[in-house]
């Protein structure tokens, strides 16, 4: 016979939860702000999605918006056409290669810079480095492409001149016309432009860490590197994961640093197209230059589908491995 155990738990008084409607009424003012935001989101983000239909229809631009609904269904004709396009392999390879290279190289750099800046004790130096590193974020890609041409040209480029004067190279490097340099050019310029900006996010996360943790670690004899490894990095892990998921979600657009389209469009040319043509520039060219809107929509839709898979996939992996995720 089991001994009778007295229930020591406190009695639970059932409190009926207010209905959703009542809660909404209670939060009327803030909810109205949300509704305005949702309406804007719906009008500008969701409503235009009916254009996706074009990818499955034989659409002619002269039929106007109604033509999207009235034109003939052609199923996956344009997707199949794209799979058979002579540039398909090149374009997909370039898109994936540039995107993954950007992720690999541009994701850790802002974290490292944030950690380094956090260790700088002279605030003037810290501010100068911070300001100069995030300043390029505000320069448009058109200007960056112009600067790249001026600095990297073989005929008149300052960078080549500089390297040659130092005796590092004997012949100018064809940064702009040699296809083999395009991926490096894309990653390098993106890193230069956006590292400082993303450093701010990680610096903000670092500044939220309780300073007593560092003090305690210091008393225990932990050096700088130990403190970074055992305190700073674990404390900002959540931020790192969220930013990483966002970066993977927009991977095909260039991830954290974005700008795949701008770079390929502005720095790409017929000579380096074998390395610079990507899904977005090709869709742009097919749609606007050639007027093949259905075909261009199919190409772009394909990219969107891959992006959705990537964001769900990365979120699932993040949740499994770090117990942190976006949703």
């Amino acid at each position, binding site marked *: 016979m089991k001994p009778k155990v007295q229930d020591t738990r406190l009695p639970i008084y059932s409190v009926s939860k207010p209905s959703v409607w009542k809660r909404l009424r209670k939060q*009327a*003012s803030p909810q*109205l*702000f949300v509704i*305005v935001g949702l309406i*804007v989101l719906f009008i500008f983000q969701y409503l235009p999605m009916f254009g996706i239909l074009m990818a499955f229809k034989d659409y*002619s*631009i*002269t*039929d*106007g918006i109604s033509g999207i609904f009235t034109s003939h269904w052609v199923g996956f004709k344009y997707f199949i056409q794209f799979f058979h*396009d*002579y*540039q398909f392999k090149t374009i997909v390879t370039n898109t994936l290669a540039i995107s993954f290279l950007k992720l690999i190289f541009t994701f850790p750099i802002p974290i490292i810079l944030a950690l380094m800046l956090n260790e700088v004790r002279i605030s003037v130096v810290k501010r100068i480095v911070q300001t100069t590193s995030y300043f390029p974020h505000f320069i448009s890609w058109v200007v960056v492409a112009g600067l790249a041409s001026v600095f990297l*040209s*073989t*005929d*008149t480029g300052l960078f080549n001149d500089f390297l040659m004067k130092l005796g590092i190279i004997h012949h100018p490097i*064809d940064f*702009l*016309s*040699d296809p083999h340099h395009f991926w490096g050019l894309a990653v390098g310029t993106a890193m230069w432009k956006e590292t400082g900006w993303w450093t701010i996010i990680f610096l903000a996360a670092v500044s939220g860490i309780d300073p007593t943790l560092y003090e305690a670690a210091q008393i225990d004899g932990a050096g700088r590197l130990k403190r970074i490894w055992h305190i700073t990095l674990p404390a900002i892990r959540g931020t790192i994961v969220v930013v990483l998921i966002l970066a993977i979600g927009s991977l095909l657009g260039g991830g954290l640093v974005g700008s795949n389209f701008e770079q390929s469009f502005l720095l790409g*040319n*017929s*000579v*380096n*197209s*074998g390395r610079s*043509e990507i899904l977005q520039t090709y869709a742009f*060219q097919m749609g*606007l*230059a*050639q*007027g*093949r*809107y259905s075909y261009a929509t199919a190409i772009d839709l394909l990219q969107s589908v891959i992006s959705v898979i990537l964001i769900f996939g990365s979120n699932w992996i993040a949740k499994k491995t770090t117990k942190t995720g976006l949703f």
Partner: protein
Amino acid sequence: MKRKLRMRLNLLAIIIVALSLLVACDSGNKTSKSASDNASSSKKSSDGTQTLSIFVDQSYWPLDKWKGEIPEEITKETGIKLKVQVATDSQQLPLMISSGDLPDLVFTSDHFQQMSDPKISYTWDELIKKYNVKDFNIDPLARVLNQASDGKLYSVKNGFTNPEEFKSTPKALGNVPALSIRTDIMKELGNPKLESLDDLVNLLKEVKAKYPKMTPLVLSPVALSHYFRVNFGVGYQGFTKVDGKAAYYIADPKQYDYYMFMNKLYREGLISAENFTWKDANKDKEMIENGQAFAICNNTDMATINAEIKAAGKDFQIDQVPQLLGDNAELTTNSAGWSGLFITKNAKNPKAAIKFLQFMHSEKGQQLGLWGIKGKDWTLDQPIADGGYPKFKYDSQSASEQKKKGAVWWGLLADNGINEQVQRYVPGTSVTKAMMDAKKYTKNDPILGAIDPPVGSEEQVTKANLDNMIQNEEAKIYLANSASAAKKAYNNMMKTAKQIGLTKLDNYANSQYNKLIDEYNKVKN
């Protein structure tokens, strides 16, 4: 009470936010609407003139305003002023077509087929009939060459000259791709012989050796291949004849020699790889004017370049090589005209538009637009057919003079070719000599120029894909590191062309050619 007041204030704030959003949307609409209104309205001003809006689909078009004595004279004659919008890039017109935001008139070459659509443009015939426009006769040959896939005529490309008429008009000169060189350096080198392509290669090598910091030759980004293709007797666009049959220009086996020559120029360091990456259409001009290059291949522009060099205070000039250098040189124009003027369905006053077109199409309108005011700007001593040409009282070949007066360009809206061609004749200049020389090698089959697959057709897609492929693949030939690598790249390009559908396109072109030639002969006879 306080709570209620706070609630109301919150509601008011939300309404203001919502309204400001809507206002933002609305003002956005207004902006685009007013732009569209400006673009498509034809307002009658107090002086009785009408304003028609025009979109010129050529980004290099220098006249962005209806200004100068010639436009003013056209306004006097027609009562019409143009509100000009020049394309910023080649994507602008397709975007305008997509959004329906078209002006009264559109002048285009690249999107001629796209504009030849009953939903976008009026046919000239329907407006001529509707508004009972008299004395507006369209050349029956031009009708055959410009008809759309529905058999209707939405526009006529300007600059079309019957090949026989061109040959028989002594002073009619075609626009030829040009090679111009620095005269001072030529003198320093002892004016070496320049009568063949080998001579040219040797000369450029000599320049490279003596002036290592100088680029021996720069090619215009808008006419990159034109000069040398002409020297090898091959076309640089559209359809040509291969073994007596119509075929896309790339199918001509003679293209191989051209590509190998270009590759040789690159391997010898006589042209730079970066030349093929230039997006700025004036980069070649800039290089030659800054003294960074010795020779330039472009569309004839010597007078302008020299004027700009002089204005910059530099002490050198360039001179156009007066004869073609290739052993098999041939200027295959195969043109049924260049650009056409369309009256869009957005035109608020189609009657005024067709009347304007009628004037610009008339002999008087062409001469006014192309040459200037009779007596004041030019005189004509004898009929053009007998060797006459306009004797100008201003520097007719200078771009700045043309811009100041508004000369030449507005005349191109509806010129018949000959009037434009005799405008180029200036006795004694090297440019005229070069054009006279090129005339000997000119071959024009307008029927080939009239082959243009309809928008959205399989053939049009194939042609666009081929153009795109050629642009990417030929760069690999130009910049190959060895002759064998260049040959491999050429073979690869041709193999890809066949995979894309070159043979099918050639078959289509040939059947279209035979169909058009029947119609052409019927009209001609």
